[in-house]
């Protein structure tokens, strides 16, 4: 993975010192609340329901064992022994004391990490495919480009005070696992007819209260121009994006208002001035040098998969886990393993200090000392030799990290909701617990097949509810927690915004409603159709009828 050089290290160290001084001045009353707000946000610090919340960047989801150990130690020393993985490959701590945040940032800097630009109206953490470098459908490894973009975006002086937050995701595979179509900028690595590698550029996607699927404004951008093109887009947005209404300030609204074609023209015009600037041009040797940071690990060639495959035949527990929680790897004898953070009874995405520490060890033992964070709030050990799988499963199971439900209804995405977030309308963690209790039969979950259930506690859609097959959105109805259901959304290649089912349902009716939806699915399903396929074939009516009829 990318290792800091002296230059990178100086930047994060000086940034910590700067924030330490800013915090000191705030606590001494020299900085007003209004003045301190943008400064703390750009260092990842929110003021939340109970305490400050610190959001730490995990650039493109990649962590070393040493970094994960530091996160464990932060959880233990400064928080209440756990952290929360988010849909944007960040980790959040819910209980740090403001006075201690500079110390936390210093600990992070010690392992080449930071919390810069994880909040505020600036370019946020760059996210990517969690199977980067190992997926068999990969066109090119996105990580070197992510790191180049990360550096370009870090403390970019022109774009520190954008109209609103700005999110960039990069996918290097044919199957989009990075939700690029619902980001402010989505970058898809592609090859043109001549076999040359380039980027397809989408803009204006986003969730929140106005969910919009991004539009392609360039189908093939030579990679040498990647940074200058991003700079052009950001400049147009910085100058023209609305600043009078924060709900209309995202780039998606600007693209909508101008029309994608006019927006594209404006960007291309700006780009004319930027495209040949040497400092924004990625020469082949620049890219080659960055690629060296992401070498292929030293894979074994003597892996014997036969005993493991026998176990798949003989052992139900192992088979279930193997089928649900491991996926194909491009190297023979290897699989990528999902570490489930969806154990029933635990808030989705939460991980304890003890689990983090143990997992750091497991990563060293089984997967070259690296861990990835997925946007579905799980972790991945990406390079596991298949003859190690049985031992790894046992170890994960002991830690409560082997729940064999990846990709099923029980693998739901869930934001912190009313329990932690001051913007929430309704709880999400307790609803997740209800759903886990109701749907606890593994065979039933497997029968339902691939199903993406996402839940957000408010319109901000941190839980990506509006691009879920089944989305659940917390709303406030006269002080009561209610839940709006949407169907048919997706954040992958067939991206779509879900359709609203009908009136919101009360909290104690959410699990019943899900059951009714799934019954409708089972009744109408043809063959091995997924929920999404059945839904798209039938439309919303049968689901609506079933749900609201049974409610009477």
């Amino acid at each position, binding site marked *: 993975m990318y290792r800091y*050089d002296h230059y990178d290290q100086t930047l994060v160290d000086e*940034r910590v010192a700067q924030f330490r001084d800013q915090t000191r001045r705030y606590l001494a009353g020299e900085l007003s609340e209004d003045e301190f707000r943008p400064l703390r946000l750009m260092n990842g610090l929110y003021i939340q329901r109970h305490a400050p919340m610190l959001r730490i960047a995990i650039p493109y989801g990649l962590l070393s064992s040493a970094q994960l150990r530091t996160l464990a130690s932060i959880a233990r020393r400064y928080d209440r022994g756990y952290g929360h993985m988010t849909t944007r490959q960040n980790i959040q701590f819910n209980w740090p004391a403001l006075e201690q945040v500079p110390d936390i940032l210093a600990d992070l800097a010690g392992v080449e990490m930071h919390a810069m630009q994880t909040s505020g109206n600036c370019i946020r953490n760059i996210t990517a495919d969690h199977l980067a470098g190992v997926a068999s459908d990969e066109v090119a490894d996105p990580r070197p480009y992510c790191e180049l973009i990360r550096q370009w975006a870090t*403390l970019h002086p*022109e774009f520190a005070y954008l*109209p609103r937050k700005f999110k960039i995701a990069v996918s290097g595979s044919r199957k989009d696992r990075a939700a690029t179509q619902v980001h402010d900028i989505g970058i898809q690595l592609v090859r043109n007819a001549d076999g040359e590698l380039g980027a397809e550029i989408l803009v204006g996607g986003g969730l929140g209260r106005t969910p919009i699927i991004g539009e392609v404004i360039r189908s093939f951008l030579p990679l040498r121009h990647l940074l200058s093109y991003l700079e052009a887009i950001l400049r147009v947005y*910085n100058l023209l994006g609305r600043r009078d209404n924060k709900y209309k300030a995202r780039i998606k609204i600007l693209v909508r208002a101008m029309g994608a074609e006019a927006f594209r023209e404006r960007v291309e015009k700006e780009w004319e001035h930027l495209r040949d600037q040497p400092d924004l041009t990625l020469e082949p*040797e*620049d890219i080659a040098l960055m690629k060296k940071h992401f070498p292929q690990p030293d894979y074994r060639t003597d892996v014997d998969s036969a005993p493991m495959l026998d176990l798949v035949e003989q052992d139900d527990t192992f088979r279930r886990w193997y089928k649900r929680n491991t996926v194909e790897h491009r190297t023979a004898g290897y699989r990528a393993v999902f570490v489930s953070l969806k154990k029933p009874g635990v808030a989705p995405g939460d991980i304890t200090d003890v689990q983090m520490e143990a997992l750091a060890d497991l990563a060293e033992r089984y997967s070259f000392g690296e861990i990835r964070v997925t946007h579905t709030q799980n972790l991945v050990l990406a390079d596991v030799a298949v003859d190690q799988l049985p031992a790894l499963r046992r170890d994960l199971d002991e830690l409560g990290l082997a729940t064999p439900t990846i990709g099923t209804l029980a693998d739901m995405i869930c934001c912190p909701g009313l329990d932690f977030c001051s913007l929430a309308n309704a709880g999400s963690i307790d609803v997740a617990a209800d759903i886990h209790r109701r749907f606890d039969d593994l065979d039933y979950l497997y029968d339902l097949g691939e199903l993406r259930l996402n839940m957000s506690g408010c319109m901000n859609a941190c839980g990506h509810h509006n691009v879920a097959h089944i989305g659940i959105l917390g709303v406030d109805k006269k002080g009561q927690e209610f839940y709006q259901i949407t169907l048919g959304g997706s954040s992958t290649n067939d991206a779509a915004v879900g359709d609203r089912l009908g009136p919101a349902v009360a909290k104690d009716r959410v699990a019943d409603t899900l059951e009714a939806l799934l019954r409708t699915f089972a009744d109408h399903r043809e063959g091995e159709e997924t929920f999404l396929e059945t839904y798209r074939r039938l439309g919303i009516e049968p689901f609506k009828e079933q749900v609201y009829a049974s409610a009477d």
Partner: protein
Amino acid sequence: MPVLISDRRIQPDDAWLMIADEAPIPQEGPVVLGWDRWILEQETLRGRSDPLGIRVNGDVPIQELGPQAERFDLIALEFPVATDGRCYSHARVLRTQYRFRGELRAVGNVLRDQIAFMERVGINSFLLDQGRSYAEQALAALGEISVAYQTAPLDTLPRIRRRLAGAEPA
């Protein structure tokens, strides 16, 4: 008393006179006019030989200001609130695209914790409203972060390339 920092020094005095939109323009001496006033009165100001400055905010289209920029000795960029980031782009475009070499001055809500970013987009003077000791701190803040991934407009060496060339993976 506002304090002026320019070219990384606190300046004892400032020759520029900011002219309010309704106020008469003195016959002589360096003056800074609002954009609208300039648009309306540029014909009559054409013969003026003393230095002329212009005051703009993020609303002024940069494509209109840019081509005229070299007419001015000073462009004052107004930050009505600290979170209005449009003038950062104005500054960079003026420096890199229109090759503006005169003084770029930040005015309005100019804060100690933002002027390092302002400097790096090419702004070289800052008018601070919060008194002398604040200005001294602000001056010190310019050096808080000594490295940057982006090139400043007046840098000569392309940064990313220079750095990548020297940085082998550990």
